[in-house]
């Protein structure tokens, strides 16, 4: 790394600022962010618009700087030397007449691009400075000091429209081919019917009677009807037993069930 050795050299002008800038990059390479940064600082000494900068003069200035550094045995980073080599190449391109056999870019094109790079870097630095000079949040401008917490509430909304409802109903009702609401009870003997019947019969059942003898007429033949009537009558007898109106008796598993009115 280069030591910040004071290096006396004839100042290029008598302008103090210029001299200082010149000395700065001679003495203190550490202060620069690489060759492009150094070139930009050097170009400033030309005191012209970066677009009209003399790249040739700049190249000579840079090569002079590298030469002086070398004489002083200041170790330069590789990229500074790479830039020096490139600028030497550029210088020869700018000074020599163009070689018609060479298809590469002309010296002017290369110089223009370097000038563009320098101008762009300079512009970005200005932009960065302007950005940082803006009012900044937490420094010049402030947000709410006491944000109020927003409570998060998750809610599920179950949706159904009247149309959904009516269609659902229509769907159920049309399963039975539009029959009016009456269930098919041809082969169904309900517990209510059995209860009704049993309530009328128990008055006559002082003795044990087989429950199956109480099945209504017309419900004993067809197996389906018999099954329904048996179930309903049995359920009804349980209900009456619960009410304390009758007593039930069964000798063994699957034996006939007998019933009689409960003695008052």
């Amino acid at each position: 790394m280069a030591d910040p050795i004071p290096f006396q050299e004839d100042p290029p002008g008598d302008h103090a600022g210029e001299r200082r800038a010149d000395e700065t990059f001679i003495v203190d390479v550490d202060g620069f962010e690489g060759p492009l940064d150094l070139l930009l600082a050097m170009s400033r000494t030309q005191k012209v618009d970066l677009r009209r900068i003399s790249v040739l003069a700049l190249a000579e200035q840079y090569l002079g700087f590298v030469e002086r550094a070398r004489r002083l045995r200041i170790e330069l980073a590789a990229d500074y030397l790479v830039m020096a080599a490139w600028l030497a190449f550029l210088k020869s391109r700018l000074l020599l007449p163009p070689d018609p056999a060479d298809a590469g870019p002309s010296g002017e094109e290369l110089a223009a691009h370097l000038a563009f790079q320098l101008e762009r870097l300079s512009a970005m630095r200005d932009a960065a400075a302007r950005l940082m000079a803006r009012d900044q949040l937490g420094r010049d401008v402030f947000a709410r000091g006491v944000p109020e917490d927003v409570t998060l509430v998750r809610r599920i909304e179950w949706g159904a429209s009247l149309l959904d409802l009516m269609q659902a109903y229509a769907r159920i009702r049309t399963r039975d081919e539009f029959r009016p609401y009456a269930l098919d009870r041809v082969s169904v003997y309900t517990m209510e019917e059995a209860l009704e019947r049993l309530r009328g019969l128990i008055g006559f059942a002082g003795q044990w009677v087989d429950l199956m003898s109480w099945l209504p007429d017309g419900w004993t033949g067809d197996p389906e009807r018999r099954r329904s009537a048996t179930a309903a009558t049995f359920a009804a007898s349980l209900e009456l037993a619960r009410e304390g109106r009758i007593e039930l008796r069964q000798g063994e598993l699957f034996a006939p069930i007998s019933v009689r009115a409960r003695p008052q």
Partner: protein
Amino acid sequence: MTAPADDDREQSLFEAPPMAEQERMVEAILFATAEPVTIAELLGRMPHGSEPLEALNLLRRRYEGRGVRVVRVGAAWAIRTAPDLGFLMRKETVEQRKLSRAAIETLAIIAYHQPVTRAEIEEIRGVAVSRGTVDQLLELDWIRFGRRRMTPGRPVTYVVTERFLDHFGLESTRDLPGLKELRAAGLLDNRSYPGSLGAGEGGEPPPEEEDQPGMFDQDQEVGR
């Protein structure tokens, strides 16, 4: 505080900002400060000669009826949301879900036949009604328990609620269209209701739904 005895130079040097400016200052301080601010603190932060109490009162009046208010918190002052707008501070995420077919059918039966027992619903639907379906409708407050039926077992009945009427825009269940109107409206002629594939084609009862945990899974129910 500058005493009246102070000389002119000192006066102008410490001249307090105009009251409108002081009001702006109080506004900014109350806004950005994490805790309620006392008058003493305002006095300490504002330029010499300011009168924070007066500025505060102006600000307080300015915010009257606005979305936020200047309120007193103990001995200090703060800006707070107007109480009537507290509901805005709840971020509600609403998830829209369609009722399952089982639920909507059960609901329809209750609406058309109320008061109706569960056994009757099952009889009409031709399929068992799951406890979850009824619970959901109860939870939605679309159905409630009616009187017990005076039959053996004294089964409970279900009826629809005011909220049900409200949701479906009905004055009463008598306003529900009957079969005739449904047919007139084309609701019965259309055999391919969404989700009624089985029923529409041949009256095949839908599969047993009891004890199916996936029942409320809409995607399964609806697409059936």
